[in-house]
C-alpha cells in the first residue's frame, strides 16, 4: 500500500522513487501494490510521473499494480498514457548495444553524406555543362544579384580583416628582422606570405562565414518551406536555377576579392614598416614588387578561385540537405561554415605540397 499525501506540484521536487523501488526489490513476496489517496491534496503531472515509475518497476518484477485507489483523474491520464503505443520501436536497449548502434549509424550517415555530396557535385557539373551549351535555366538577373551580394557588399569586412592581418604579419616579422638589421626584408615576408597564401585564405574564410552561411541558410529555408520542391515540380531544376548563379557569382568574385585583400594586406604591412621600421611607402612597395613573383601572385588568385568553388559547394549542398524544421536552417548554416573552412584549409595544405613539388 502506497499512501499518497499532501500536495503534488511540478514545482516541488519529486519524492525519490528509489525508496519505493528498493522496497519492491527487497520484499520478494510482494505481489500487489495499491494506492491510498484519501489524504491527497492538489496534484498534477508530477504525481502521474511518480505513479508511472512505480508501475514500470513493478511490472518488470511481475507485481500487480492496482490503480483503483488513485484519484479519478490520474486513472484517466494513466489510461491515456498506456492505451496504445504510438510507435512500437521503443524497446529497452542495453548501453553496449546502443553504443554499437550509434557507431553504426554514424558510420552509415558519414558514407551517406559522402554519397549525397558526390551526387550534388555531379548534378552541378552537369548543370554547368548545360549552361555552357545554353540550355540551362539560370536567370541573368539572379547572377547579378548574387554578384553584388558576395562581391561589393563584402568589401567592408574584407578591407578590415586583410589590413589587420597584414599589420600582424608585419609586426611578427619586424621584431625578428630588426635583430639582424634586415628590416627591409619585411616587404618580402609580408608580400610573399599574403600573395601566395594568406590573401586567398583570409578571403575564403571570410566568404565562408559570410556567403557560404548565407547560401546554406537561404537554400535551407527554401527547402524547409517546400520552395525547392515547388521549383522542381514546375520542371525548373533547382540546381540550375539556384545553385549555378550562386556558384558562378562566388567563383567570379573570389579572385577579385583576393586581389583586393592582397593589396590591403600589403598596405597594412607597409603601415607597420613605416611607423615601426621607418621604411618609406615607396621603398616598401618597390621591394615588394621585386620580391613577389608573378607566379606566386597568380597562384594565390588561382587558389582563391578554387576556394570559392569549395565554399559555394559547401553552402549550397548543406542548404539542399536541410531536413524539415526550422532548426534545420541553423544547422545547415553551421555545417556549411565548418565544411568550407575544413575544405579550404585542407586544400591549402594540398596546394602547398603540390606547388612545392612543382617548384613554383
Amino acid at each position, binding site marked *: 500500500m502506497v499512501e499518497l499525501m499532501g500536495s503534488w506540484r511540478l514545482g516541488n521536487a519529486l519524492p525519490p522513487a528509489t525508496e519505493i523501488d528498493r522496497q519492491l526489490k527487497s520484499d520478494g513476496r510482494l505481489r500487489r501494490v495499491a494506492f491510498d489517496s484519501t489524504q491527497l491534496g492538489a496534484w498534477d503531472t508530477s504525481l502521474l510521473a511518480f505513479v508511472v515509475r512505480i508501475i514500470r518497476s513493478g511490472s518488470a518484477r511481475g507485481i500487480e499494480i492496482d490503480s483503483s485507489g488513485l484519484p479519478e483523474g490520474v486513472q484517466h491520464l494513466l489510461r491515456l498514457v498506456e492505451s496504445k503505443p504510438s510507435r512500437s520501436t521503443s524497446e529497452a536497449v542495453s548501453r553496449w548495444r546502443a553504443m554499437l548502434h550509434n557507431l553504426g549509424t554514424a558510420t552509415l550517415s558519414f558514407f551517406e553524406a559522402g554519397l549525397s555530396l558526390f551526387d550534388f557535385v555531379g548534378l552541378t557539373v552537369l548543370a554547368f555543362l548545360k549552361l555552357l551549351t545554353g540550355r540551362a535555366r539560370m536567370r541573368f538577373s539572379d547572377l547579378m544579384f548574387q554578384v553584388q551580394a558576395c562581391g561589393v557588399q563584402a568589401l567592408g569586412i574584407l578591407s578590415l580583416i586583410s589590413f589587420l592581418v597584414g599589420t600582424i604579419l608585419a609586426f611578427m616579422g619586424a621584431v625578428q628582422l630588426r635583430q639582424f638589421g634586415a628590416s627591409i626584408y619585411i616587404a618580402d615576408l609580408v608580400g610573399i606570405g599574403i600573395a601566395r597564401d594568406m590573401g586567398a585564405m583570409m578571403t575564403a574564410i571570410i566568404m565562408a562565414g559570410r556567403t557560404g552561411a548565407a547560401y546554406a541558410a537561404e537554400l535551407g529555408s527554401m527547402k524547409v518551406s517546400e520552395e525547392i*520542391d515547388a521549383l522542381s515540380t514546375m520542371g525548373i531544376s533547382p540546381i540550375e536555377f539556384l545553385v549555378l548563379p550562386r556558384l558562378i557569382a562566388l567563383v567570379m568574385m573570389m579572385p577579385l576579392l583576393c586581389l583586393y585583400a592582397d593589396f590591403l594586406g600589403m598596405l597594412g604591412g607597409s603601415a607597420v614598416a613605416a611607423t615601426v621600421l621607418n621604411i618609406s611607402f615607396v621603398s616598401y612597395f618597390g621591394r615588394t614588387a621585386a620580391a613577389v613573383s608573378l607566379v606566386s601572385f597568380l597562384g594565390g588568385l588561382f587558389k582563391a578561385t578554387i576556394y570559392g568553388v569549395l565554399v559555394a559547394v559547401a553552402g549550397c549542398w548543406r542548404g539542399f540537405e536541410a531536413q524539415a524544421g526550422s532548426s534545420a536552417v541553423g544547422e545547415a548554416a553551421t555545417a556549411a561554415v565548418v565544411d568550407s573552412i575544413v575544405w579550404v584549409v585542407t586544400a591549402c595544405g594540398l596546394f602547398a605540397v603540390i606547388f612545392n613539388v612543382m617548384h613554383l
Partner: protein
Amino acid sequence: MPMQQTTEQLDSSAPHIEVRDLTMAYGDRVVLTDINFSVRRGEIFIIMGGSGCGKSTLLRHMVGLIRPAKGEILYNGVSFTDSDPRTRDAIVRRFGILYQGGALWSSMTLAENVGLPLAEFTLLRPDEIREIVSLKLAMVGLKGFEDFYPSELSGGMRKRGGLARAIALDPEILFFDEPTSGLDPLSARLFDDLILELRASLGATVVVVSHELASIFAIGDDSLFLDAGSRTAIAQGNPRELLEKCEDPRVRRFLTRGKETAREAKSV
C-alpha cells in the same frame, strides 16, 4: 488563354491518373503499401485519412518528388515512374501544385512568383505576362497585391498566391495539399468554391489531400481513405456514399468525427 478542352482529350476514356500497386517508404520504413486507384478526367479526388498516415507522402510520389519503392503511376496511360526525363518533364509541366504552406518563393514578389512559370515556359512578352499575372491574381482574389513579398502576406493569402501560381500555366491536373487547413471556416468555404470554379473553368482534374470533413463532403467526387494502422487504403468511393454505406468502423469514425463509434472506441 488556352483552355485544355480539345476534343482529343475529352473523349479519351482512359483514366487520367492511375496508381498501380504502389509501395512507399522512407529508407527502410514502409509508410504505405498496395495502393491502387485511378482518377477520372475532370473529377475531384480526395485523399483522406488520419494525421501521419501518409497522405502528403502519396502526393509527393504522384508529383514525382519521391520515387516509389514499388509499383508505378501513370498519366493518360503513360508511365510516369519509368519514363525518360523528357517525357517526365512534359508530364510535370501539366501539373499545378499547391503546397501546404503555399511555398511561394520568398525572394520574389507575388507577381514574379506567378510570372516565373510563364516567363520560363512560354514565349510571351513581359507586358503580356504582367497582364496574365494580374488576371490570375484576380481569380484568386489577390488583385492589387502584385508587388507584395510573400512575407508581407497572411497565411491564407499565401495559399491563394500559391494557387495563382499553380494555375499560371492552365494545368491539366491540380494537386492540393491541405488547401483549407489553417483557414477560418468562412475562408475555407470560399477556397472550396474557388476549387470548384477552377475545375469548371479549366476543366482540370483535381487531387486534394484533406482531412477537413466539411470540405471533403463539399467538393469530393471520389476519395481514397488511407489507414496508418494497416498501412494501406481501406476504402474508396464518393465521400457522401462512404458516409452512408461504408461498414468499416475506422472509416465511419473518421467521417462522423468519432461520434458513431465513440462508445466502441472507448471500450477497446
